[in-house]
């Protein structure tokens, strides 16, 4: 559901403005004058229809941080989770060589991290097993990513289920933007990657690319968790094709992957997916889009077999009438899972289950004036485990000029029960919870985003989240059971900005803070808070400094200071740094030297008592070539 973006409806509005201009062509006289003008005189002409569509900052009234494709390449990161460290509004914890837990606005952890929606090109990648994201099943080719939108806070109407505390929306480039050959290789003491992509035009208005990406990571030293052999290697390959007709755009894409984990013989994962999307422009002010995908993966880890098959279909209709930009849509998804645990007593009952999720949504962006817009949306959602749930949100955006946006929002979001919430059991220790309800959130947010000067940009957001029916692990009638036994509120501030200090030097700084006041509801007692209430540093600080050292030589330094995880087992605060030194030897060849976690040989990041290993210093060299 990545394509349900604000941008989509804005593009339709933009089209209306353009056709308006076409109806009233410039007079012959003024055209003659234009012909005789110098190019710097053109720059001074005041034009009609100075629409808001070319505004320099996104008008999305949400806490939005965008990682651009250049950010991704300059960072020297080799995996998706390492790229996500660029977002100040995400907390990224490396668990082992390939596993990460990632959260926005708290509730991070291997077990607790279940309130985030992540999408790759419109394909949802959190699993209904525990509503978490298994990041080691996704190795897209980073060079072909267009951008990553990170929204902290509920995603509003337009994103799909599970957008409770945040949305990570990853989009890859249109195939028409990746024509040609690209090769990349990196070699370090602990990691090797190699990738190749070939893109070519197909007919007059289409293109296709195919890619393959290999990675091989050594295991990490043992940390808080049990010492495990967490080395991980594998490959992912795939394609994306885009075609454009008079009023239509078609996208067909798919991936296939296979990984081997060193933990036990036979451990690893494999899977494949295919997605189709059709967009049609019906008129200058309306369009629709339909999308469907199939996704399958199967993984085996320490005598646990887990597989998931997903079918998803969605449709969306956008129209602009007068001062209203309307978006309506519908989505339905079904999953069939299979979870077989031969390692310990914990199992799902039944082991295999088909689940359904459906939603209908509508949103109106009403332009009260040139500067003020009101966005009201509602999504109605239903899943196998719940009845219809109503998720409204109301936003206001005030944009006094192109450089400043002030917004505020109030939203209701829910996390629908996962398979683990309802059907995990381990008799006689853990009883299943057939009555487990959705966790509920009312989020109140406000923010500012702007460009105080031509060389600076700045964004600040504040939020208060009111939670109810949060998951607890309790002791009921002689056994453990999952209950909706906790409530409370969290609040915090996120801010980031960047400044061009000199033509050759840019700096960026981001900070996020989190205060949590969660407590047991009357009659309930949480016994294992780390499993549900999160393992969150109360603050983090992320900095970056980019230097153009010389012609074709570029240095990108990144540092982060992460506060302590006070939830037992405790992880101390730490400071780490890394970056990339890149030399564009020619327009086609780039050599780079990159590092992560450079300050300490090893450090603790995750406090997961079962699996957390130590994050480690890594240095590697790479080459990238384009033909």
């Amino acid at each position, binding site marked *: 559901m990545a394509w349900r973006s604000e*941008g989509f409806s804005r*593009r339709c509005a*933009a089209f209306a403005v*353009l*056709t308006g*201009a*076409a109806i009233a*062509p*410039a*007079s012959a006289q*003024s*055209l003659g*004058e*234009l*012909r005789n*003008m110098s*190019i*710097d*005189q*053109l*720059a*001074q*002409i*005041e*034009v*009609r229809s100075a*629409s808001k*569509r*070319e*505004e320099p900052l996104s008008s999305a009234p949400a806490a939005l941080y965008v990682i651009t494709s*250049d*950010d991704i*390449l*300059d960072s020297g990161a080799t995996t998706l989770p390492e790229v996500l460290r660029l977002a100040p509004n995400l907390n990224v914890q490396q668990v082992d060589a390939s596993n990460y837990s990632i959260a926005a606005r708290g509730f991070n952890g291997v077990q607790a991290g279940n309130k985030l929606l992540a999408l790759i090109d419109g394909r949802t990648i959190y699993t209904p097993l525990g509503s978490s994201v298994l990041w080691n099943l996704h190795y897209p080719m980073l060079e072909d990513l267009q951008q990553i939108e990170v929204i902290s806070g509920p995603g509003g109407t337009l994103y799909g289920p599970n957008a409770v505390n945040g949305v990570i929306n990853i989009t890859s*480039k*249109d195939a*028409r*933007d*990746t*024509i*040609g050959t690209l090769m990349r290789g990196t070699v370090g003491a602990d990691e090797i990657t190699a990738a190749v992509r070939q893109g070519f*035009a*197909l*007919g*007059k*208005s289409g*293109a296709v690319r195919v890619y393959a990406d290999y990675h091989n990571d050594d295991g990490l030293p043992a940390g808080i968790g049990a010492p495990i052999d967490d080395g991980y290697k594998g490959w992912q390959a795939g394609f994306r094709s885009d075609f*454009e*007709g*008079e009023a239509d755009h078609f996208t067909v894409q798919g991936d296939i992957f296979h990984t081997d984990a060193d933990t036990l013989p036979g451990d690893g994962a494999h899977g494949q997916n295919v997605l189709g999307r059709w967009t049609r422009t019906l008129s200058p002010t309306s369009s629709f889009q339909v999308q469907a995908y199939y996704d399958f993966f199967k993984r085996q880890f320490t005598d646990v077999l887990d597989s998931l098959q997903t079918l998803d279909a969605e449709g969306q209709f956008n129209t602009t009438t007068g001062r209203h930009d309307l978006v309506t849509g519908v989505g339905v998804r079904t999953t069939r899972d299979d979870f077989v645990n031969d390692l310990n007593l914990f199992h799902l009952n039944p082991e295999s289950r088909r689940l359904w999720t459906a939603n209908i949504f509508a949103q109106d962006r009403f332009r009260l004036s040139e500067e003020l817009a009101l966005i009201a949306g509602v999504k109605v959602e239903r899943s196998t485990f719940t009845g219809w749930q109503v998720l409204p949100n109301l936003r206001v955006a005030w944009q006094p000029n*192109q450089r400043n946006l002030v917004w505020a929002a109030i939203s209701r979001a829910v996390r629908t029960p996962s398979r683990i919430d309802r059907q995990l059991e381990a008799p006689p220790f853990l009883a299943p919870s057939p009555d487990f309800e959705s966790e509920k959130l009312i989020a109140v947010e406000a923010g500012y985003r702007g460009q105080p000067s*031509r*060389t600076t940009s700045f964004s600040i957001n504040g939020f208060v989240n009111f939670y109810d029916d949060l998951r607890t692990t309790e002791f009921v009638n002689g056994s453990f059971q999952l209950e909706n036994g906790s409530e409370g509120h969290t609040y915090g501030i996120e801010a980031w900005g960047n400044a*061009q200090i000199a033509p050759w030097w*840019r700096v960026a700084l981001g900070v996020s803070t989190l205060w949590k006041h969660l407590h047991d509801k009357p009659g309930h007692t949480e016994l294992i808070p780390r499993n549900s209430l999160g393992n969150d540093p109360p603050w983090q600080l992320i900095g970056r400094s*980019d230097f*153009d050292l010389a012609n074709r030589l570029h240095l990108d330094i990144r540092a982060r200071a992460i506060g302590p995880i006070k939830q037992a087992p405790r992880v101390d605060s730490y400071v780490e740094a890394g970056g990339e030194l*890149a030399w564009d030897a020619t327009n086609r060849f780039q050599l780079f030297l990159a590092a992560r976690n450079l300050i300490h040989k090893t450090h603790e990041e995750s406090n997961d008592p079962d699996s957390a290993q130590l994050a480690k210093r890594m240095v590697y060299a790479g080459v*990238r070539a*384009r033909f």
Partner: protein
Amino acid sequence: MRGRRLQLWGLGLTLALAPAPALAQVSEAAVKAAYLYKMAAFVTWPPGAFASASSPFRICVLNRTDVAGPLSELTRGAQTWGRQVVVSVIGGGQDVNQCQILFLGDGRAPLGESAPVLTVTDRGAASPGVVEFTMQQSHVRFVIHRGQADARRLQISSKLLAVAAAVVP
């Protein structure tokens, strides 16, 4: 491969000194059309960019009649680099590799990454061209992406760089 670091040039001065043209307000599309035509003089194309010595200088416009209309008017009978200027409106059925300047708006065309074509896009396009139009207080300005120009082997004159609202290395 490079970060989009804005390098600001001394444009404030140039602009303040030039007299404001006394024009009735014209459309944004017409000003963009004028830019497309005028820019040709400040860009050098590599050898081999033209099929033959007598090939015309082709400015292509993807699906945008609002720009193509004024552009055809402006370039009637015009020559640049000793070649006749031809404006083509492309609706998805033409080989864009033959264009010298290609205005994409916020659309896309299947163009080789290193084809010697001066790509021009609107701000907000999914992938910016060598030249990216941007609006600044009702004025049409442009940003130049130098890395893209290098990849396409286009030489941009310092005069054009100086007029640009920003130059991205």
